[in-house]
């Protein structure tokens, strides 16, 4: 568990953290909705059954190692958060056309993840911890069948939820007591 007693040194505006908390909850709710729809429509309800497929498709994970409670390095934590959000925006983009019924949910989630990344990036710029250029999204997996796109959707939604959960806990810690 995070030690709330001592939030880090960087002066993070309270409104920034509050907005990020709301954006994290908003994106998480949409990721859950995306998973529920994939389960209802394509009977793909168990992300744990798709680990091997994820490996073979080369679906990348994003990490937040610098956001761990023991050793929170805020600047690199923000960078990892922003880079992770950009990665998931790219993955959601790669899932475009997964199915007409799902597109509105995926499109909205992609926009919300992109906006969350913008919020973090601008704050990094204002704190002077932003790298000179935005990080590249990296190579995105190519899905060669409808099933792969659907299964990829389940994996991305599931990974994104865990990522957002971790981000949320970090942000919660940053709001301090």
């Amino acid at each position, binding site marked *: 568990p995070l030690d709330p007693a001592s939030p880090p040194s960087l002066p993070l505006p309270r409104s920034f953290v509050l907005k990020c908390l709301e954006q994290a909850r908003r994106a998480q709710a949409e990721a859950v909705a995306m998973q529920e729809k994939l389960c209802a429509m394509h009977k793909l309800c168990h992300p744990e*059954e*798709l*680990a*091997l497929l994820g490996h*073979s498709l080369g679906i990348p994970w994003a990490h937040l190692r610098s956001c761990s409670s023991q050793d929170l390095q805020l600047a690199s934590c923000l960078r990892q958060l922003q880079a992770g959000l950009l990665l998931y925006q790219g993955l959601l983009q790669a899932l475009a056309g997964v199915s007409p019924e799902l597109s509105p949910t995926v499109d909205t989630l992609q926009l919300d993840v992109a906006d969350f990344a913008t919020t973090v990036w601008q704050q990094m710029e204002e704190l002077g911890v932003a790298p000179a250029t935005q990080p590249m999204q990296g190579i995105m997996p190519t899905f060669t069948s409808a099933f792969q796109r659907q299964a990829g959707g389940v994996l991305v939604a599931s990974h994104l939820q865990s990522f957002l959960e971790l981000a949320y806990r970090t942000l919660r810690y940053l709001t301090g007591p």
Partner: protein
Amino acid sequence: ENCGHISISAPIVRLGDPVTASCTVSQSCSYLEPEPRILWKLGAELLQHKGRQQTQPDGSQESIITLPSLNSTHTFLLCYLNWSNSLQLLDQVELWAGHPPAMPYNLSCLMNLMSNSLICQWEPGPDTHLPTNFTLKSFKSRGDCQTKEDPIKDCVPADGQSYCSIPRKHLILYQNMVIWVQAENALGTSQSPQLCLDPMDVVKLEPPTLLAVDPHPEVALPQPDCLWLRWEPWKPSLYMDQKCELRYRPQLQGASWAQVGPLPSRTVRYELCELRPATAYALQMRCIRALLPGQWSSWSPSLELQTT
């Protein structure tokens, strides 16, 4: 790198027909033990010992499965592998089972003078359990429809609807045309019997409007057993010669309709006599195209008049 792939005889079959499928696991799926065991599920049900698994010349593993009779109209066939102690899903295909479309029937058409379009409706026949497209097809013709002239643009109904509206610009009025419905799904096609009709012979005529008129102004005491009324044809059908029928009955329990006709489609004054004095009457009128084929309009709403 694609670990597993299902190929299937046909994703859509007739209800009860067999389905054969194979799941091939490539050797390059490097995370695996040498001869990974391939497992199948139909929906949520694990198909125990149903797949015949063999190693292919290229080192890949292939399991072939035959479902003798597919009885659910929509399900999933899944190919799994055991991987570090968990069932891993490699591929999944959707399966549909249903019927080829039956012949659509009861095709009928009406020409709507308000929208100036020919609206045809039909009975689609029993559910095929499969996405089935209905198309209203037609071509222009002559005489008794033995000859086929220019084709008319297909009329595609909105999803799930069993009617379609052919716009005016695709019609030649006062000429016969041939119309039928085609139904099509993955298992086949069928066509309804053909209709041969002139749109103007199937005009949907609306009834005229009945209006009360005052008894003769000069006559001090109007005859007690008469009623006076007038009527005007439905405006959009003014140009059509029509003949009409008037029916009337006293507003009494069990009274039956009496009928007068044929009557012209417009009068400024009509006298109806030999009625019961001091009685409320309901009057209705309907019309039909005169001298040329047509269909009766429905009866007009009642005009209620009282004899003195």
